[in-house]
């Protein structure tokens, strides 16, 4: 009866399956938890994420063996090629789990002080979002990609709306939902075009078909048409100009803990989506998407850095700065393809982009974490003026913020510099000198608003009535470790650069 049925190999998807099982379990367990702090739910959530990360790494460990160039990689496809567990995916899935863990740890007290946010549901939704990201990262098929994307978007949308008594949060959720749906629509439309031409939804299959079709004029038009929609959808998800409009409102309107969840880990998933679709799937069309990405990059860096200057709210400012950072990251992807198609140089460029993304997430975690640690019940600490004279109130907090701002501005000894440097290096090597000059000019403009935060913290007098800052030892340790990582990777970036380069080299 089941002769056509072959049980798929579940092992590559073990982390996702475990995560899904645990989400359901936590949802049930939470019903029985009575304490308002919901320690048990929190512990279980963090443990689940940790175990998922470990499972991912355990599966990936078998791949770490040295390999001869040209030797076929171990088959990591399962579920009829819909799911791929390559090193790139495993690396980023582990990072996503860690990023969500850190986000939740930073949010712990913030959430306790805001009783209108139901905490059990918060944890469950955060886990679902993680699951969505992991599915997205491991997608080798348009359908599984879309499935992951929607799990992520819907969970984040629900999280944004979770604070029911907040008007701005509801507005942000609405915006996120409507614009997110629009973006998904574009993405699906682009995918359907590609399906129409190639007859397949599987990314690797699409790549072969597109490659075989080089030089056929009619198909080329449809392909390019589909590609435009695809890139537009991706740009929406990344928040690149001109598809960025949801970002400032959502960052600003959502509770800070949710902003952190939106701002950090999903960027990693979006990166994989871009690289799997464009580099993995449509590398034959690079001549078309390269110029699109460059345009998106320049517009994002330009508008993002300029508009950030005008912001009074630090979350809004960071949203515009995120737009600018995505532009910078896209520069690396766009400069990956050079005349002659040198694989080594291309890998360097993608490595730079991945490194940029990972380190950006690292700094973002600390910035929003710090904003949350400074906030109180009924006080969000998200206006720029709330940072006035922070050095007088707490030298330690000011120093941490200083590190983050300098890192985001790309000043050396901090990791943001190495990230920008790596991207610029690949831009220059690919021969786009003017693009590099534009990028540094926009960084210069961007430096202003990061410097302004420093000036508010160090040069201005503190408000006499400001509430004293108190943070638990655990929170301080977490933030310190995070900041030390930003500085340490900035001085010794070799390990992370190697890791990024290695997973990309093994996956493409």
């Amino acid at each position: 009866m089941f002769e056509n049925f072959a049980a798929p190999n579940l092992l590559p998807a073990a982390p996702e399956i475990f995560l899904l099982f645990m989400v359901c379990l936590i949802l049930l367990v939470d019903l029985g938890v009575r304490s308002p702090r919901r320690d048990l739910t929190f512990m279980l959530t963090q443990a689940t994420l940790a175990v998922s990360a470990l499972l991912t790494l355990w599966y990936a460990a078998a791949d770490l063996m040295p390999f001869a160039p040209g030797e076929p990689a171990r088959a990591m496809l399962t579920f009829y090629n819909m799911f791929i567990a390559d090193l790139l995916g495993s690396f980023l899935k582990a990072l996503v789990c860690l990023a969500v863990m850190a986000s939740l740890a930073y949010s712990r007290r913030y959430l306790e002080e805001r009783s209108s946010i139901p905490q059990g549901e918060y944890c469950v939704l955060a886990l679902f979002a993680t699951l969505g990201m992991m599915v997205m990262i491991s997608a080798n098929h348009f359908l599984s990609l879309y499935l992951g994307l929607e799990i992520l978007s819907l969970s984040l949308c629900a999280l944004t709306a979770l604070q029911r008594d907040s008007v701005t949060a509801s507005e942000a959720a609405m915006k996120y939902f409507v614009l997110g749906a629009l973006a998904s629509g574009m993405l699906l439309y682009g995918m359907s075009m590609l399906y129409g031409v190639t007859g397949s939804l599987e990314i690797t299959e699409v790549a072969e078909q597109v490659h075989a079709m080089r030089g056929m004029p009619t198909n080329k038009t449809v392909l390019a048409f589909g590609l435009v929609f695809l890139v537009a959808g991706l740009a929406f998800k990344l928040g690149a100009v001109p598809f960025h409009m949801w970002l400032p409102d959502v960052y600003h309107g959502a509770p800070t803990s949710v902003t952190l969840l939106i701002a950090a880990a999903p960027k990693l998933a979006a990166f994989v989506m871009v690289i799997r679709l464009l580099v993995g799937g449509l590398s034959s069309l690079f001549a078309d998407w390269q110029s699109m990405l460059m345009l998106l990059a320049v517009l994002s860096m330009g508008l993002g850095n300029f508009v950030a200057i005008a912001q009074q709210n630090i979350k809004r400012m960071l949203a515009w700065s995120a737009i600018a950072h995505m532009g910078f990251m896209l520069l690396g992807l766009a400069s990956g393809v050079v005349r002659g198609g040198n694989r080594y140089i291309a890998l360097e460029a993608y490595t730079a982009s991945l490194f940029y993304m990972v380190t950006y997430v690292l700094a973002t975690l600390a910035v929003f974490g710090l904003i949350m640690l400074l906030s109180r019940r009924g006080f969000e600490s998200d206006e720029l003026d709330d940072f006035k004279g922070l050095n007088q109130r707490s030298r330690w907090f000011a120093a941490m913020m200083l590190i983050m701002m300098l890192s985001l501005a790309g000043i050396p000894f901090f990791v943001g510099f190495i990230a920008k440097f790596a991207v610029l290096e690949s831009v220059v090597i690919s021969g786009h000198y003017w693009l590099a000059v534009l990028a540094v000019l926009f960084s210069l403009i961007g430096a202003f608003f990061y410097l302004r935060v420093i000036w508010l913290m160090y040069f201005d007098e503190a408000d006499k009535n400001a509430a004293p800052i108190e943070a638990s030892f655990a929170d301080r340790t977490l933030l310190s470790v995070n900041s030390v990582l930003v500085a340490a990777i900035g001085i010794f970036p070799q390990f992370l650069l190697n890791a990024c380069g290695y997973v990309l080299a093994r996956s493409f």
Partner: protein
Amino acid sequence: MSSYPLLSLAVWIPVAAGFAVLATGADRNAALARRIALAGAALGFLVTLPLYAGFDTARSGMQFEEIHAWIPHFNARYHLGVDGISLLFVILNSLVTVFVILAGWKAVENQVAQYNAAFLIMSGLMNGIFVALDGLLFYVFFEASLIPLYLIVGVWGGPRRVYAAIKFFLYTLSGSLLFLVAILYLFARSGSFAILEWHLLPLALHEQVWLFIAFLVAFAVKVPMFPLHTWLPDAHVEAPTGGSVVLAAIALKLGAYGFVRFSLPITPDAAHELAWLMIALSLIAVVYIGFVALAQTDMKKLVAYSSISHMGFVTLGFFMMSALAIEGALVQMISHGFVSAAMFLSIGVLYDRMHSRQIADYGGVAHTMPKFAALFMLFAMANAGLPATSGFVGEFMVILAAVQFNFWVAFAAASTLILGAAYTLWMYKRVIFGAVANDAVRALADLSGREYLILGLLALCVLGMGLYPQAFTEVMHVSVNDLLQHIALKKY
């Protein structure tokens, strides 16, 4: 040769001392913070002395080299070394740091630990700039050293400190970011960040011109050269005394050092092509800024403009490209390091007592502060280029070289002897001589022991260098000759 990593010590001892000072915490441990800072600065200076003693003046190339892997991914190495050009700046910088820590002993009352830490860390980073032989490492030090200075101006500065700090930071950052693109281009061409390899890299003329312009923007902002100089008077006026001293004595030298380490050897043909432009800009700085200095009513601003004018001499010397001119320019850099530091410290002495920098608020200081007036006289004379002071040597060498180069260039350059004397001595006359201007001046107390020590030591440096400049020129002789031989060859 010593087997100790002296250069690493010169860079990292001050930085480590800076973090140690930060660890003393809040202002209640201010005395401890000051002592640790002074010990760190003194130790940092002491480790640079064996550099001078062990330096082989007959050998060309880099000495005291240290090479370690740093970021193999970019082929960037931790590569330090000094030649006759950079050696003296390391010592100068480490010495000035000691003075700066001493100068802030009483004057800085709030956030003492952070103040001293900022200066120590900056001192280490600036040593790093002078000794880095890897392009990426140089850039990292070059840009990171902006952070402490930004904080020093912004936190401990005067009323318009925020404006001055931001202006300073954005001006210098704009230059250094173009420099970043330039070094990336060199990396793309050569596959390495080794500065010494870039010196040998063949480059077409148009490439050289672009690179030269990128270098020019970066270093001209730092020097500062006309017309990119406008940040300097603001930064000087608002900075605390120590900040002004480091800015004038060391930070300005970074730009000039960049010209001899990057522009001349990497893009020699472009430097020959564009030398007229550089000489013209330098002469504008010397003459026009000299006149601007004459019109100032604020002492610090006057010395700031006089710094720009004196640095014009340095760039003029570099781009006349003769041994005498370049050595003169280097001597002028060291001398200006002593003299400008002394001038700003002297003004700081007055400012600590009167809380005014306006010339009009003073008059007859000689009656109440005779010791100070005597020392200040020496520094003012040195600033004006009086023979037997250090200020004379460099200016004389550059003017002499200019006469060989072109009479009219020499004529314009020599006007500085009149202008410099005019603005410095006129300011001196109005502040020090005459009848006692007001009660505040009447109540002035003469130099304390600590101030006497600082200014006295600087007076020794100024006189010593003026009387026996050979101690400085013999170190740089071989390196300058090598540089000239190198830039005489075409690269394409």
